[in-house]
């Protein structure tokens, strides 16, 4: 069943946005941990991918370093430009079922959530 609703824990999001601010003007990248049940995705926490790269214009990590963990449901990263729409590179490299993009100035208003097809999803903070 496709994801229709996304619920993000407020503390978890604050942590992610805080890290985005810290690495600015470089791009931050984190794994999204949570669960998906009957079209509802609940984001519990954000994880730091091992040996990840934070750079000007891109961020990444080695996929073979990620443990086999089904609770990782997607990837979140930041766009220091402030434009939170996925780039072509993002659409080609969607990992998991969710993708979050936080644009500068990294607050709730500048966050966008997309499904694995690159379609924007509405989200609520819990």
């Amino acid at each position, binding site marked *: 069943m496709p994801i229709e609703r996304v619920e993000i824990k407020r503390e978890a999001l604050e942590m992610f946005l805080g890290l985005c601010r810290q690495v600015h003007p470089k791009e931050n990248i984190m794994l999204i941990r949570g669960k998906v049940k009957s079209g509802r995705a609940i984001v519990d926490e954000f994880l*730091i991918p091992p040996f990840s790269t934070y750079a000007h214009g891109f961020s990444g990590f080695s996929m*073979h370093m990620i443990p086999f963990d089904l609770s990782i449901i997607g990837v979140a*990263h930041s766009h220091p430009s402030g434009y939170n729409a996925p780039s072509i590179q993002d659409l080609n490299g969607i990992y998991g079922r969710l993708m979050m993009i936080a644009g500068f100035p990294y607050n709730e208003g500048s966050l966008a959530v997309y499904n694995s097809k690159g379609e924007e999803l509405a989200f609520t903070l819990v």
Partner: protein
Amino acid sequence: MGITWDWVRNNIGIALVLLSGALMSFTMLSADPVGAAICGEECARGTIALSLMPAYFAMMVIGIGNSATPYIKYLVKREFNRRDLKRLFLGLVISGGSVLRREGKYCIRYYGKDGGMHSVFRDLAHQIYGTEPQTVKVNGRGTWMSQFYSKHAVLEMAELSPGLASRKGETPTISYILDGGKSIRIEAVRVMMSTAGWINCTFSYTSGSTKAYPRLGFGSVLSDSLAGECSCLMMAIPLRMESYSNSKYPSKGYLATSDVEEMQNFLKAGGFLRGSRVKKGTFGGMEKNILLQALLGVHGTEFRSREAAIDLLTSRDDASLELSIYLDRLRLG
């Protein structure tokens, strides 16, 4: 059956694959699933184990490489005798090589960019004539040449196909291959198609969409007689191809088909030799079997544009995809 070097090599290969697989599984199962904890001090051992994953993968690749049976050994196992192998060798030389006989020099050469086909040439020459051809780069042409000197081999090739060693414009013949059994004729088609066969894709544009149609062909400057013989040879699969004349050289031509069923017949018979790659063009470097399968998969499918179709087709090259997964990193912009 005695213990041979190949037997040892094969078993070491299998052992390496099993060992690396076990190590990978153990590392993944024992690693803390929380990525954040991996970076913590308390999990240093887990980090070391995880950092060895590329080494395990390399070990697995080496193992697979050592345990894979070369094409010629596979033929020998199928009880192809020396005469059958000679038929394949003749097909290989006619489709992509040359025979030189002048001023006391007797040389057989094979040209191409495909390393896998050079191995087949070397293995066949070794198996039939007991020689070790040398592969060298042809400067300025970006291609490779394998060659060996043998009077016996050259005279034999000239006897089997008189036009092959002639420099008076005579065309070679594959009648010796046609005399072989069905299984050898099928293998000969595979070998010759892997050398001189090509895959193309034509696009038809309709209002708002593009459709891709595959085309499979053989040769480009075949003489009428050789094209006719090759056409007969391909009926062993059966792979029916029509003869077309070359627009640049009207007396020469090539064989081609756009019939999906014929292409499927070819794939069912084994397709191109494993590892045979497209030489140049849009799909240059792709494994021929993967490209053909991909083209058959998208036959008649509507795409937004030609580029979208090509993107989808080129992404089907499994080897490059796996390599990008293991060597590249997920990179978001």
